[in-house]
């Protein structure tokens, strides 16, 4: 096998970062992704983070924890995270294993994830406006 650790690309779209997770994640690649995402969030203004897991054939406890940790880290930095693209098989497997993604927003696919982030932002804006009115 090739002994190169590829960085997972982080794409910026409007005010969101999009990360498509790849299979075969190792401790090192998870650490690297964590560092990359937090650095990007810290340096550039972003409001949303989308973690797309549709390319994964399975999610074991290690990968699930990595996803959950990323979402929690992003939330601590004030960035809303949506996990999208869980296949029915993966969802059922996670439940059978007794794993969940507590406190993490999820969406069926990328479109829905973007919509969810836009909606969350509009709600924020509305709340701001109504508090101005008072």
């Amino acid at each position: 096998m090739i002994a190169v650790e590829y960085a997972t690309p982080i794409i910026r779209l409007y005010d969101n970062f999009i990360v498509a997770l790849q299979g075969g994640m190792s401790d090192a690649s998870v650490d690297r992704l964590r560092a990359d995402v937090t650095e990007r969030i810290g340096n550039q203004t972003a409001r949303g983070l989308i973690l797309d897991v549709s390319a994964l054939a399975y999610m074991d406890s290690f990968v699930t924890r990595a996803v959950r940790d990323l979402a929690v880290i992003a939330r601590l930095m004030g960035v809303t995270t949506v996990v999208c693209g869980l296949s029915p098989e993966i969802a059922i497997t996670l439940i059978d294993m007794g794993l969940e993604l507590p406190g993490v927003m999820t969406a069926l696919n990328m479109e829905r994830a973007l919509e969810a982030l836009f909606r969350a932002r509009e709600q924020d804006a509305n709340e701001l406006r109504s508090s101005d009115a008072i």
Partner: protein
Amino acid sequence: MSYAAPTQSKPNDAAPAVLAALELTFSRALANTLLMVARQRSNENAGQLSGPKLSSVLAALEGSLGAYLADAEKRLRCVSALQRVGAEYGALLATESVPWVILLGSERDLPVVTEAARTCAQHTGMSVLGQTKLMTATAELARNIVQYAGSGEVHFATFATPSRGVLVVAIDRGPGIPDVEKVMSPKYVSKTGMGIGLQGAKRLADEFTIECKPGKGTTVRLRKYV
């Protein structure tokens, strides 16, 4: 290695398909030689390759691959190509065979292990959900080995009795688990996630046994039925 009676059979000769599968990995000349040797070894020198004949020739072929392909990944690809031909021509399901032993040295070997799990599951005709569960359970075992023992091996076998399924045996010679019962109890919460992994694998499997000798290593066997 023995194979169960064919469930469905195509009447025609599978030899060209077997050669084509071999040629994905080997040169044409070597592919021809390998098939010839396998036919001789299983006493199926003449006639069309189909049904039980095909089963025994494929078994001989799979058995001899190890000598030609040191690379586990290539071997896996070749075996799965052969098994596809077998399935297509109605040959076989291994009743209890151990065609694959995959050595685990680092996290980089994980994809090979999960791919082997998927191929075995597909070979038995398991649903996509079953395949996903088996891959996940296997990944948990493999990651545990890499994390706690450093290295080990994962054996795969498909079986047809009492019903079809896949057997996965994960073996390491690491430190072992000091208190297996504690780790496997639902209340156990570890910092490193070992409990979650093993318990998860157990919940996904139909049969699950764990043998552990402190200081000598751990053997986990799990079965998943179709």
